[in-house]
């Protein structure tokens, strides 16, 4: 954590400086959190909604931030919970349709003007969508964001050992998916 992050965290306790400090922290963490969410929900519009909810929850719940974890870790936790509840709500709304929510996400991705990947990258996204939600989260965090297992352990409140095993398992499944596609 940089000196300015520490300073901003301290300013959050001062009611006069609170809004300014929080805005500065939004600017500091918005990109990281956006990509964390976007990799799970895939569409830009959905990622934008979840990101707004994340910061709004953070702002309204500032008194719940006890300072025993880093502010970024706390925001990551909120973003993760918001993303998972967004997906579970989507799943509930999707119950009546024939396809799964993953099919839905993939279909939207293929027609999304904000998707700029090549065929191999699209195939990777398809493979990632075959993973269970929590494993998808672990895979994305490790593979694309290169977050350490210790940091991930703090965010997801799961042991590093379990996260390592989950990531390893996810990689195997994705490789298997690629091999099956080849056959």
């Amino acid at each position, binding site marked *: 954590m940089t000196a300015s992050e520490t300073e901003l965290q301290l300013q959050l306790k001062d009611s006069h400086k609170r809004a300014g400090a929080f805005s500065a922290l*939004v600017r500091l963490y918005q990109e990281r959190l956006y*990509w964390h969410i976007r990799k799970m929900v895939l569409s830009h519009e959905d990622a934008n909604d979840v990101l707004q909810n994340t910061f709004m929850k953070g702002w309204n719940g500032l008194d719940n931030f006890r300072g025993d974890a880093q502010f970024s870790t706390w925001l990551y936790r909120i973003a993760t919970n918001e993303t998972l509840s967004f997906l579970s709500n989507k799943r509930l709304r999707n119950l009546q349709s024939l396809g799964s929510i993953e099919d839905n996400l993939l279909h939207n991705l293929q027609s999304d003007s904000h998707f700029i990947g090549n065929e191999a990258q699209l195939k990777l996204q398809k493979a990632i969508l075959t993973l269970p939600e929590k494993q998808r989260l672990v895979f994305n965090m490790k593979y*694309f964001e290169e977050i350490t297992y210790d940091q991930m352990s703090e965010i997801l409140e799961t042991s590093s050992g379990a996260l390592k095993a989950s990531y390893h398992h996810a990689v195997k499944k994705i490789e298997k998916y690629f091999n099956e596609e080849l056959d």
Partner: protein
Amino acid sequence: MEPNKTLEQIGTELPFKVPENYFDQFASQFEETIAAKKPRHITLRKKWMSIAAMFIGILVLGQLLYKLYDKQTVNKQDNYEAYVLMQVDEASLVDCYVNNSSK
């Protein structure tokens, strides 16, 4: 058709983009939103006020229950007096009053 690639060959670059100036706009809009809204937080004073209100509530309720109990006791006493008087005939009552006034 592209041949299947391994994870290493695909790389870790994300295949998504965001609209131009998205992050600048997001931060500015959010700044405006929170400038209008103060965070919801329960102050210490508010906490004390709610505790005091709870005690006042308990006292008022206690008072009401006590009054109700008191009224019932008075009613019981009145009923008992009426019951006793019913058992005594008028001649004995007059006798009793005359005796008391002569003492």
